[in-house]
């Protein structure tokens, strides 16, 4: 469109520099990677278990859900290899604690036979979280992990899509429960992002970008499910306050 004096558009030097790849061999990188790598390994492991549980809740789709779950297991092995490739030992106790609140909410919902909440947690929130993190990570990953993650992220869209389609088909009856579950669980995603942001920064993954990527995946998914802009805005508010 129209012109602007370019001195209004000065690019901060350090911002350009931070587009560069990090030093994968540095101690600080390895230290941060031990937690981030553990998070993705644990996330994929729990996702496998969650899909197996979902197969019990939706027996008519059991085969598909188990198949999706097995993909998560495969991802987990891929990310274990990424850690080994950098000679990093993943900090699994940290990762288990990191996911514990969300995981407990999933298990409680499963015990109560609450399919809506289980799908929201695993297929919408966790998958959106994973997609956003992987999309950001791909740009700054070491070559080995980049290749693995590029393969994984395509699969995660399939996982998100499953929950999306189920919720879309059942929206009339589950809308209220979906919003209620979102109000409880979306803030957990926000606090998880906050918790990991310093380590992510070391990997050159910007917190602001992670959050925006998450919101894009989350918003797209809710739109696809059939919620309107105002409803999505109300749901997304839980991530702000």
């Amino acid at each position, binding site marked *: *469109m*129209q*012109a*602007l*004096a*370019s*001195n*209004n*558009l*000065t*690019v*901060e030097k350090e*911002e*350009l520099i*931070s*587009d560069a790849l990090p030093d994968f061999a540095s101690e600080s990188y390895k230290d941060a990677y031990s937690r981030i790598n553990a998070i993705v390994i644990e996330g994929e492991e729990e996702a496998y278990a969650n899909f197996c549980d979902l197969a019990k809740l939706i027996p008519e789709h059991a085969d598909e859900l188990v198949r999706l779950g097995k993909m998560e297991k495969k991802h987990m092995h891929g990310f274990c290899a990424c850690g080994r490739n950098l000679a990093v030992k993943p900090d699994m106790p940290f990762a288990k604690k990191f996911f514990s609140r969300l995981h407990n909410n999933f298990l409680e919902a499963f015990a109560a036979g609450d399919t809506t909440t289980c799908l929201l947690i695993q297929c919408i929130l966790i998958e959106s979280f994973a997609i956003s993190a992987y*999309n950001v990570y791909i740009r700054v990953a070491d070559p080995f992990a980049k290749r693995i993650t590029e393969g994984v*992220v*395509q699969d995660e*869209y399939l996982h998100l899509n499953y929950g999306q389609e189920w919720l879309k088909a059942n929206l009339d009856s589950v809308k209220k429960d979906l919003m209620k579950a979102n109000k409880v669980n979306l803030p957990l995603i926000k606090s998880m992002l906050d918790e990991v942001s310093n380590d992510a920064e070391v990997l050159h993954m*910007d917190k*602001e*970008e992670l*959050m*925006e*990527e998450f*919101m*894009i995946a989350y*918003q797209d998914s809710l739109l696809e499910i059939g919620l309107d*802009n*105002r409803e999505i*805005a*109300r749901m*997304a*508010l839980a*991530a*702000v*306050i």
Partner: protein
Amino acid sequence: MFGLIGHSTSFEDAKRKALDLGYDHIAEGDLDVWCTAPPQLVEHVKIVSAIGKTIEGAYIDSCFVPEMLSRFKTARRKVLNAMELAQKKGISITALGGFTSIIFENFNLLQNQKVRNTTLDWQRFTTGNTHTAWVICRQLEQNAPRIGIDLRKSKVAVVGATGDIGSAVCRWLTNRTGVSELLLVARQQKPLLELQSQLGGGRILSLDEALPEADIVIWVASMPKTLEIDPSKIKRPCLMIDGGYPKNLGEKFSGPGIHVLKGGIVQFFKDIGWSMMELAEMENPKREMFACFAEAMILEFENCHTNFSWGRNNITLEKMDFIGQASERHGFSAVGLKSNIQTLTV
């Protein structure tokens, strides 16, 4: 379908508008929250042209606000994400409005063609600069005589002459309008010399040298906030066409005989049922819009789904002819000075 990617003129405006539209989650957030907000497709619109052709379009707010300009990565994301959304929605031709195309050009976003799992198809986007340049030239041709300026005797200063729009305006004025002399103003000498050579004329001057000589000033570079100009040094009458973004020329120049016109703005021949131009603070938001936005509509009216305006200094006279004729045919006209101006004789 055509698309328009725009944004609010300030953070405060953006918050107000978001509240109106029901986007409470971002309306209540601070600038950091806005930096993480995804682009929003806020409006669909159907438009019938003056010759009866019907098109549909959508307005996408990138959730960028000018306060984010100092955040390079944020600004880049806002533009790319809005473009990705336009493409995902299957929009055939989308204009990059406001700061969007400026960020695209200045931050060299051509190197960021892959956005997540989408490869941006540049053919689907246009800067709209060809139409903007044509409209600015029309505004000059139509309004200068109204305030008593004889184009054949006039000196026209183009500030930002080497830019995409500026250079196109210079080519048009040299070849089509027959002004007395072009005064070329820009920051860098080398491109100025190249332009002068391509035009086969024009005098290279500094801004301070050019202003007292010019009967008409076309600004296609926004002024630095610190710029101070003594109005007594400006010729009377003087037509100033503010083709920059944001449009702040009126704040700098006022006084009898100085006529400031918002450049690159067009008016459609009838009301359009949208609220999107209120975001851009148009005087008549149901009809007025940036010429760059109108370019996407014109291309859609013409079934011309291509990145008509793209890159720098690719605007030819033939392209300006094409877009200008189509613009008039479908019911657009360049916004002019208010009708109650005093006509002077020279």
